């Protein structure tokens, strides 16, 4: 078990190394200013963010001033969106009434491109953090909501009958039966929402009045044609996304241990 885990890790690292080398080769050969080689990008990342004093864990002021606020926004938005998505999704999945009343409006909102509503957001929420959070929550809530609703609707009917036969209370049915069996599908939605929250965090930093953040640095870099800096931002997002995803999978493996074990080996 453990050795197999080791082997896939090594394998994955190998694939990664090969790809990065290929990337370096291709970009060097192409020599386009728009596609700097990864070594240049890494150099820039180091200079911009990771060449600080030991006291701040090598983080520079730019890193502290941009990466941390971005992460804060992202996590707050993710938490809000996930919570709202789960709550609404459960309501929609469990209650035909709630579904009927809300379906039309939610499907309408879901299709709306947030960039078109910036002015409305601005007027309703004002400049800055509140608007950014509203923006993130509004954008990431949908995958969680839809997948949770799907999960709550697809609970094994005999499980529900068992609940009714033993007259479990609503709360017990919700927390001990519906939620656990919807959990695998919810996690698919949460995993989508996690990386989406990084993306929308970048979008939210394009909004009027933003003065810091990874997304802010990316757009500022592009508007001044500092392409290595833009790529540094992109790579940072990729790395962060990768790390968050790994973290997410650890949580998922713990929470869904029964599910994976019951499913047996994949294939």
């Amino acid at each position, binding site marked *: 078990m453990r050795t197999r885990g080791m082997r896939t890790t090594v394998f994955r690292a190998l694939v990664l190394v090969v790809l990065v080398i290929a990337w370096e080769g291709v970009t060097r050969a192409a020599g386009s200013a728009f596609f700097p080689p990864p070594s240049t990008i890494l150099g820039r990342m180091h200079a911009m963010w990771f060449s600080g004093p030991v006291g701040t864990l090598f983080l520079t002021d730019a890193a502290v001033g941009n990466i941390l606020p971005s992460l804060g926004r992202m996590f707050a938005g993710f938490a809000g969106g996930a919570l709202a998505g789960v709550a609404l999704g459960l309501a929609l999945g469990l209650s035909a009434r709630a579904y009927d009343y809300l379906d039309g409006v939610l499907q309408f909102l879901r299709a709306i491109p947030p960039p078109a509503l910036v002015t409305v957001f601005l007027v309703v929420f004002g400049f800055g953090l509140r608007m950014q959070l509203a923006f993130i929550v509004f954008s990431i809530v949908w995958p969680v909501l839809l997948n949770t609703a799907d999960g709550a609707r697809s609970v094994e009917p005999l499980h529900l009958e068992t609940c009714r036969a033993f007259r479990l209370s609503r709360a017990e049915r919700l927390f*001990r039966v519906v939620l656990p069996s919807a959990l695998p599908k919810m996690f698919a939605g949460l995993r989508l929402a996690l990386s989406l929250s990084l993306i929308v965090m970048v979008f939210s930093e394009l909004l009027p009045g933003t003065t810091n953040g990874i997304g802010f640095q990316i757009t500022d870099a592009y508007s001044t044609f500092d392409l290595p800096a833009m790529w540094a931002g992109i790579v940072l997002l990729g790395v962060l996304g990768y790390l968050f995803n790994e973290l997410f999978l650890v949580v998922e493996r713990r929470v869904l241990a029964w599910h994976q*074990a*019951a499913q047996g080996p994949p294939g």
Partner: protein
Amino acid sequence: MLEIDNLSHVYGGGSPNAHHAIEGLNLSVAEGELLCIVGPSGAGKSTLLRSIAGLISPTGGQIRIEGNVVRQTPDNLAVVFQDYSRSLFPWMSVVDNVALPLRRKNMDKRQRREAAHEALESVGLAGAERKYPFQLSGGMQQRVAIARALAYRPALMLMDEPFGSVDAQTREDLEDLVLKVRGHHKMTIVLITHDIDESVYVGDRVVVLSKAPAHVVGDLKVELPTPRDQISTREHPDFVHLRAEVGRLVRGHAAV
């Protein structure tokens, strides 16, 4: 305790392939009675059970429990479903599965665990508490479902072929267990079985249903000495006679 009045159930009513599962079924069960129901496969036995439990609403007739018309699941009821493996919650350990319904009772966490433990022990699963359902054999899962219902100590217990997946020895033990529990806690039990011997051995009464649409074609009182005993009861001349009688009824109506 339980009265069923002219019960009918039609699946897919209105559609061209509607299925009349039950038609004009009358039955009443006294408090504390253990009623066995036998009948051909697909007759409508499980449908009847679901109706009693208030899980489906009959398309005709009425079911009353202690005088009240069943509109939703009555209080103090436990069901052992025929599809036992699907009725267990895969994300809970065996003991949690058994303890879950006990939250309805006034019991604290420790008491619930103890009751669950005791029930599991009584069905011969003392070592399996911490396992998950998928780690158990078919027969063991079935016994978990039985333990869950037993631990609940309901006033009315509905069992749908509860011993179908266990070996002969275990089956006999479980039959005796049900008889014992019934005696201790004054439960009313409705038990569906395909085993004619079993129906006569555990039942106070055996009701034979016809092929679909199901209605009662035989209703036999079992007057064998109590406590029953696996060897002497089965050798009792009345047992042999009743068994033959039930067999005849089942066969006669299965063939129609």
